[in-house]
């Protein structure tokens, strides 16, 4: 196929088509609108269907209906619109319906702005909607990685009967990079025996619901969900490390911030500081392994985010008190620079506890 120069939002859309997604229910919001527009043009020619819903709430519920028929289906939004989808996401989790939801996050809270941010981390990784549930969250750092992760997202969704979130930020959505799609779309479809498509001679009617009025049986249902989440924790955590074998100090960053942090880590190593990078690729489940591997010898961790300090909580839990954890963040759509991260890394290496309370 060769390399193509594409925008992040368009890569997400094309990657979904390659992964066998035929149905998209969307609603415009900056900075993810190119994704919706791309699907409106692309899906009909791929034999699928694009429908613009009247709201994010309607869109996620259309996804719920379509997911119940067993097809690969998705929607996308950005932070304020993503908040509106939370009700539907809780229902998808409760009714165990596979679907992909993309959040190209922007500055908040409230209407915030349209610049890149990572301040929806709590919302996507800690449940977000009501009830006891978690959702696998994938956080690509490059446009090429989007292509792999979208395919994996649909496979995880089908394998565990769960919604999956792809979390990017406005920068990832808007940037252009050269990408290469696999020659033949590799679609691994799962047989789904639980769908509601009309019985058509296939036994008794089926029901898709998250309701259970009996406390004991709803508890059993929750225990089933928790076993599933435990299995996802066990099998689906993904991460990347750089220079971690001999590092003393570890920068922890995901998505676009990780790309900037790489250069700060490289510069610090040149200047004699043994720095490494841990890049979580799944934010839930948060990858424990790179911290287990390093926390007993680490001299310090520095979490860097485009938020006031959200992922840093998971870093602290993973380090579990065995080393100092400091934090550096910018908010409101401000992107931390390589120099700023380098500076914080040097302070961390000097034993200083940088901005322990936030920014």
């Amino acid at each position: 196929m060769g390399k193509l120069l594409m925008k992040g939002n368009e890569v997400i859309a094309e990657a979904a088509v390659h992964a066998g997604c035929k149905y998209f229910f969307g609603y415009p919001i900056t900075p993810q609108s190119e994704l919706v527009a791309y699907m409106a043009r692309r899906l009909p020619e791929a034999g699928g269907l694009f429908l613009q819903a009247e709201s994010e709430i309607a869109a996620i519920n259309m996804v719920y209906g379509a997911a119940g028929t067993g097809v690969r289906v998705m929607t996308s939004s950005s932070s304020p619109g993503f908040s509106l989808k939370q009700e539907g996401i809780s229902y998808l989790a409760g009714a165990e319906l596979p679907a992909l939801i993309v959040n190209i996050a922007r500055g908040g809270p409230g209407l915030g702005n349209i610049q890149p941010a990572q301040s929806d981390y709590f919302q996507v990784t800690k449940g977000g909607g009501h009830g006891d549930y978690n959702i696998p969250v994938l956080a690509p750092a490059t446009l090429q990685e989007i292509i792999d992760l979208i395919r994996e997202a649909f496979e995880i969704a089908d394998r565990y009967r769960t919604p999956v979130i792809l979390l990017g930020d406005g920068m990832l959505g808007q940037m252009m990079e050269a990408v290469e799609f696999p020659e033949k779309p590799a679609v691994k479809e799962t047989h789904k025996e639980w769908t509601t498509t009309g019985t058509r001679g296939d036994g008794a009617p089926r029901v898709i619901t998250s309701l259970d009025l009996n406390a004991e049986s709803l508890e059993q249902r929750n225990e089933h969900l928790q076993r599933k989440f435990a299995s996802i924790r066990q099998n689906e955590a993904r991460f990347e490390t750089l220079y971690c074998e001999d590092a003393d100090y570890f920068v922890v960053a995901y998505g676009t911030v990780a790309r900037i942090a790489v250069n700060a880590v490289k510069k610090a190593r040149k200047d004699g500081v043994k720095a490494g990078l841990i890049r979580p690729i799944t934010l839930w489940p948060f990858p424990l392994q790179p911290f287990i591997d390093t926390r007993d010898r680490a001299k310090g961790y520095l979490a860097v985010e485009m938020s006031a300090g959200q992922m840093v909580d998971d870093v602290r839990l993973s380090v579990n008190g065995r080393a100092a954890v400091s934090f550096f963040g910018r908010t409101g759509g401000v992107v931390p620079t390589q120099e700023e991260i380098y500076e914080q890394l040097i302070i961390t290496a000097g034993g200083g506890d940088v901005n322990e309370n936030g920014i």
Partner: protein
Amino acid sequence: MKTVFEKTSGLKDTPTHYCPGCTHGIIHRLVAEVLEEMDILEDTVGVASVGCSVLSYDYFNCDMTQAAHGRAPAVATGIKRVLPDRFVFTYQGDGDLASIGIGEAIHAAARGENITIIFVNNAIYGMTGGQMAPTTLIGQKTATSPDGRNAALQGMPIKVAELMATLDGAAHIERVSAHDVPNIIKAKKAIRKAFETQKAGLGFSLIEVLSSCPTNWGLSPTESLEWIKENMLPIFPLGVYKNSSVGGKA
């Protein structure tokens, strides 16, 4: 021996949870009989809403999906757009459809979604214990309008059939009532016409059925049927508000 009456195969053999005298049971049976008579039970996916009819998925003998409060028309849209050759219906009350879900209902109609909505209007929230609904009548006492609905404070009741009929995507819109036998027979014809409209691919259909709530109205079952006739019919006139071209037969 000649069989003169049989239980419809459109309903499962499950006792319902509805209160004595509530007309939900009758409306369920009308929908079920239509699905059975059209021989489409195996080609149908129903969408249950939130409210008294939330458990309708335990009663209808076809594939069912349970939707979030008010979102049934969006869920039905998702199903129908994937499976255009299946019959898709929602069964919603007035709190669900006319209040929290009015946006989803209007836009499904505006898009001309080829689905059928059975809209059960009993002028009150039943499941949550008798609060004011958008269809509550002026002067009607409820848990949240203890002195009676006051137009200056709470506005006027929403007339859903009339509202939906203004939308170009709506193919068949009709209001019927379940308060006596002649009207129940008419209600079944209307429901049949709605599913025939869907079968012909003509677009959105909605049948509003006036229904009773003896428990929350504080009336006996017989008084409740009389209350529909005396109080609801003048505000919610029965009739066809938008007529599709298919011939309905019962």
